[in-house]
């Protein structure tokens, strides 16, 4: 006698949250990323120009602290994200970071005239560079965490998963900020 076992119907996935904004493409274009990296490099160069003992290794400093922090903490984020069984696809997670880096770099490129002005007319160039990098980091991390949460909500997260992704995003942002500060300290020292 054959016993046909009916497959257990899978629980329907929760619907995607309609209140979250539409997601951008999963990864930014190569042009956006290149422009962003060039912007960080240019901002560092603007901070390195000037008199009064400014150091040459401030030149790649902006790129080193920003991109370096993301490179060091990104894999950890991806691992914990998958470990928690969250819904968003890995390329969306990476894409959130890449978008934040690209946009942060474009912001940095726009800040070059501002930084150059203060590097040339004051002795506080390094101080301004540090402040601007903190501002870029803050707004970039905010964008990245929003991207992570949006990706999860779009993938149809359960209430528990929403809690997890918000906690993960906040924790990762804090870690990245601390790592970035540590890298920045090594650059300025």
């Amino acid at each position, binding site marked *: 006698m054959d016993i046909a076992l009916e497959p257990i119907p899978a629980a329907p996935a929760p619907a995607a949250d309609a209140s979250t904004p539409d997601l951008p493409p999963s990864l930014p274009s190569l042009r956006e990323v290149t422009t962003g990296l060039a912007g960080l490099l240019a901002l560092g160069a603007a901070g390195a120009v000037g008199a009064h003992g400014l150091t040459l290794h401030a030149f790649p400093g902006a790129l080193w602290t920003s991109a370096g922090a993301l490179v060091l903490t990104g894999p950890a984020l991806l691992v914990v994200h998958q470990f928690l069984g969250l819904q968003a696809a890995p390329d969306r997670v990476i894409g959130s970071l890449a978008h934040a880096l690209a946009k942060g770099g474009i912001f940095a490129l726009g800040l070059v005239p501002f930084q150059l002005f203060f590097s040339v007319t*004051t002795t506080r160039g390094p101080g301004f560079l540090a402040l601007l990098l903190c501002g870029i980091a803050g707004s970039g991390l905010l964008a990245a965490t929003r991207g992570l949460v949006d990706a999860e909500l779009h993938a149809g997260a359960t209430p528990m998963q929403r809690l997890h992704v918000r906690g993960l995003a906040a924790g990762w942002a804090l870690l990245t900020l601390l790592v970035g500060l540590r890298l920045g300290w090594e650059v300025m020292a």
Partner: protein
Amino acid sequence: MSGLLAVVTAQALTGGLGVAYLAGGVVVAGLLEQAGRPRGTVLGALVAWPLLLPLLGEAPSPTAPALPPGPLRGRIDQVLGALQDTLGDPAASEVPWEADLAGLRRALEDADSRLALADRLLADGTDGAEEAAAQLRAARARRADAVRAVLAEVQALRLQVGMAALAGDDDALSSRLQELSTRAATLSEVA
């Protein structure tokens, strides 16, 4: 590690930045000039070129080529300028007039530039084509009289603006302006 420009004073660096800024202005102004941008924009670029960088990436919008001024251009500018001032008065009519006035100006300037062409041809000499030259002179005179008649009616229209403001008769004013604009447009047709 020593600074990149440690021996340079802040004064010299600021001066250098200023020179570099002015050089940037000259370059951007040159590029805008080549792109056919208005003269005012080119001059503005010398001072505030970072604000005009978006213009470098876009093509200038196509505009009608400027018509060469004719013998009545000064009179046209004077009369239409006075009408524009009157219509632009806050107490004047609320009828939208910019488009009609622009059309009227274009038509009058077109007729005026055709008069200028006729004058140039007549000045070049007739070379035995006396009859044709006489016809051209007569047509030129009729066209110039027609333009002057339109300008006289435009001057009368200024007083009608005042009447409309007092009587509140914007419709009559609007139709009169459109009529003049249409009549001026026919000046370009072959008489």
